[in-house]
């Protein structure tokens, strides 16, 4: 009995919640525990001389957030209609960052056991920033590694 309970607990532990978002029709996921906020269109201050992936910075309730363009980070073409862009704010090592995405979807609960390693033929840039792939019904969810996506 107790053994069965332990296994059940372990399974619960392995369940992770992910905020899903779309960039260029691909579905991505970020662990909920990293996400601080999701914002609509924001006024961004550009930062000249910074890396092209850095879109600028914005003010979130008195804190400065560095905005990272996920499209550029993934070497995708720029978005034509960026008014609908969403900003997913994540906290990393005490600093706030925001990822610019096309849209934000629902929160999914995924078991760690169901996550597979990224396939070997995946492009290097993409491989770098993913911890694994989850197979949903009908499409694949790319799990983002916060640490590597914010290492520019």
């Amino acid at each position, binding site marked *: 009995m107790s053994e069965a309970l332990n296994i059940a607990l372990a399974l619960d532990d392995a369940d992770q919640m992910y905020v899903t978002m779309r960039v260029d029709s691909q579905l991505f996921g970020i662990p909920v525990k990293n996400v601080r906020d999701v914002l609509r269109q924001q*006024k961004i*201050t*550009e*930062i*000249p*001389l*910074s*890396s092209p992936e*850095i879109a*600028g*910075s*914005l*003010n979130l309730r*008195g804190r*400065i957030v*560095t905005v990272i363009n996920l499209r550029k980070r993934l070497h995708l073409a720029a978005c034509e209609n960026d008014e609908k862009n969403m900003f997913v704010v994540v906290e990393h*090592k005490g*600093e706030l*960052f925001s990822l610019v995405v096309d849209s934000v979807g629902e929160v999914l609960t995924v078991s760690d056991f169901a996550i597979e390693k990224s396939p070997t033929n995946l492009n290097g840039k993409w491989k770098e920033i993913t911890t694994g792939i989850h197979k949903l019904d009908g499409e694949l969810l790319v799990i983002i590694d916060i640490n590597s996506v*914010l*290492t*520019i």
Partner: protein
Amino acid sequence: MDDLIVEFITETSESLATLDNELVKLESNPQDEGILGNIFRIMHTVKGTCGFLGLPRLEKVAHASENVLGKIRDKKLDATPAAITLVLESLDKIKDLIDYLSANGEEGAGDDSELTGRLNYFADNGKIQEVELKAVVNSDVPQELHDIVESNDDFSSHFKGDDDPFMMEALERLAAEEAAKNPPVAVEPIVEIIVAPKPTVVAASAVVAKVVKAEDKKSTDSDNGANQSIRVSIDVLENLMQMVSELVLTRNQLMQIVRSKDDKELVAPLQQLSHITSELQEGVMKTRMQPIGNAWSKFPRLIRDLSLDLGKKIDLKMNGAETELDRQLLEVIKDPLTHMVRNSCDHGLETPAERLAAGKPEVGTVTLSAYHEGGHIIVEIVDDGRGVNIARVKQKAIENGLATEASLEAMSEKQIAQFVFAAGFSTAEKVTSVSGRGVGMDVVKTNIQKIGGTLDLDSTWGKGSKVAVKIPLTLAIVSVLIVESHGQKLAIPQINVLELVRAEPKSNVKIETINNALVIRLRDKLLPLAVMSEVLGFDCNHKDLVDKEVYIVVCRVGSYDFGILVDKVFDTEEIVVKPVSDIMKSITIYSGNTILGDGSVIMILDPNGIARTITNVDVSSRAEDSVASRAAVEEEKMVGFLSFTLGKGAPKAVPLELVSRLEEINVKDIEVAGNKPVVQYRGDLMRLITLDDEFTMPNSGTVDVIVFGYDKKVIGLVVNEIIDIVQAPFDIKVSSREAKQHGYLGSMLISGKTTDIVDIGYLLSDLVEEAVASMNSSGKSEAENKTILLVEDSLFFRNLTVPMLSAVGYKVTTAEDGKQAFDLLDSGNKKFDIIVTDLEMPVMDGFEFATACRKSTKVNGTPIIAYTASLSEEVMQHSKDVGMNDCVTKNDRIGLLDSVAHWLVSHKESV
């Protein structure tokens, strides 16, 4: 840790700081009973508290030192320098013990009887010589005393409530008598006798203490009202400050909205809010303010010690010690100030003889003053010494490659003097334990700049020098000027801004160009201009600017004035500086960012970084010069050497590249392990090498040691005396096999003298062997038959790296520069599995080499690892950009081996 102990540590640290100064004061006014009473009281409190908390070691030391002070107070001993030195020594011991206590929560084991013995001996011995005469006269007293001491119980009753001098005198007479009886072993009996009646002595001193305490009460009663204070932890204040800062920002935001709305109803309450916020801000700021005297408090002691060490007579004057500034700033400037005061004493002031010869008073003066000036605090360190030797600075600047003779000609003396703040710059002819090692002033400068301060040096040869430090009142809130360039709003710290100038083609201030470099004439001086939009990376046509109306923000960094050309200038704003994100730290033109009143984010510019961009332009344009002049520059490529004497014969030198530190090591601390001398060094063991068989370690005192660091390991070279840091072209004239076996590369001329060059590779060979041994055998087989091309211009590093790589099994070929290496690769005669290259090399540097390799079809797939002395973000980015695979620093040999192994494997995979 026990709360009581924590409280005790804070309190005692404060008392000790006061004691230091009081003692130094006492030394100059030995008759002042007020000072003496104060000192005695503090020491007594320390002793009492220690006893209460059960800290026996501290108590004993404090007690012994109190004994000496007690005698001085009772006029039985004079406050001679010797006495003060001894008491100061005991203070240092107490400080050490307190430090240990605060770090570990307990006192720690140890024996201080040597020090207490000396203190006690001094307390007693100082008297004996005087009493000896009396003892002969009153030869009948001792018998009486013997009886008293034997019946110990009665003894205390004899003196109950009485003054102790009588008892002391009696005891001393007894001691003297004993000494007279057995002259040959005089010292020991005395100690014994004094120790025997100790309980009573303590009892007597307790009585004294009571009296003192009563006096203490009286004196403090009067200023009781002023002492109403509580202790608040710094975190609480810091938090409060942060919140008030945010409140100020929110207020600004609100004001801006209301101003645009023109709502009359809101104006009055908002005014009120604004007023209260300002007051609150001021109030909170005040809690963080501390008088600058706190940072100066250790200087009297420092000056005293320095004047003894250096054999100079130094008088310290302090003005404006009550000037208050933010405690955070106080912490930051403490060390730089100490450094500058030391410098003034060591380099600035002359010896008494020199001063007299120059017609100055024998006693040199160092004056510290602090005052407010326009929202900033100015701290000045002035000495009336010899001043900065401009001729020598010029010479050094040329030697160190910081400037050319021609550029120095164009500079004012003041500008030249600023070179002393350059890294590794020392004009001291002799390196002393106090200063002169050429590391320091640059650190001082960076520290001051870090807190938004500026540093200014004024000096008159023969008259003295003055360093003025200008720092903001507080770190938290700074005033900035908002400007616009290329549609981008930016903030410039007000502290750097001198003035604003509007330039128009028709007005008398207009922009002129010299070979595309922009300047304006400002009050008959040419001011170089940085175009902000260009600094920000946007294209800009200089011709257009000349015909436009633009604004120029005249900035000063150190003593360098320049203008920043912007499109618009708005007003100034008070802002809270927030650090930029780590991923943007490599951009040098920003010092931070902040949120403005309207809620938008704005970047704060670092005038320092901008100044560097315009001087960089200079450097790059120089690189485009003709090949002939480049060749000439290469010939002059200078290498820094540290010269020293070792054993007999010619002076020796080592290249500065690998020297990590210079240390003085006490011979007593040298131990022998595995037949070789070692010394405990920063929590590790450091092997000491002497190199010369004729060199004999002195039996006592200290020796100079040059510390070489390599991959977290250190090795020390013991030398007789360190002479200087010199720049010389690396050109070995004579070398023999014999020399090489003895650890020398050969001999060359440095500053006109034949100098033997020490082979660092030889010194470090032990360490290299260890590294190789640490590589596992599988790694070794992996490495078999792999070929490496090592491109490295420095002979030392070639000597060091080749054996290490070949010991692991790689086949290493070397090239001396990028060109040689590329020709070798391009000829197609040889193929290599991996290339390791230095970045800074003559003819063709590492970046150019890598770029060439990546363009060539023959070598574009071979992994390239950059192997560099200094690794910065910029270097890493640059090396990545030119297609290098990895960057390793030269002192990380394991890192190099790992990286080579890693890239060999991943290269194989990708093929």
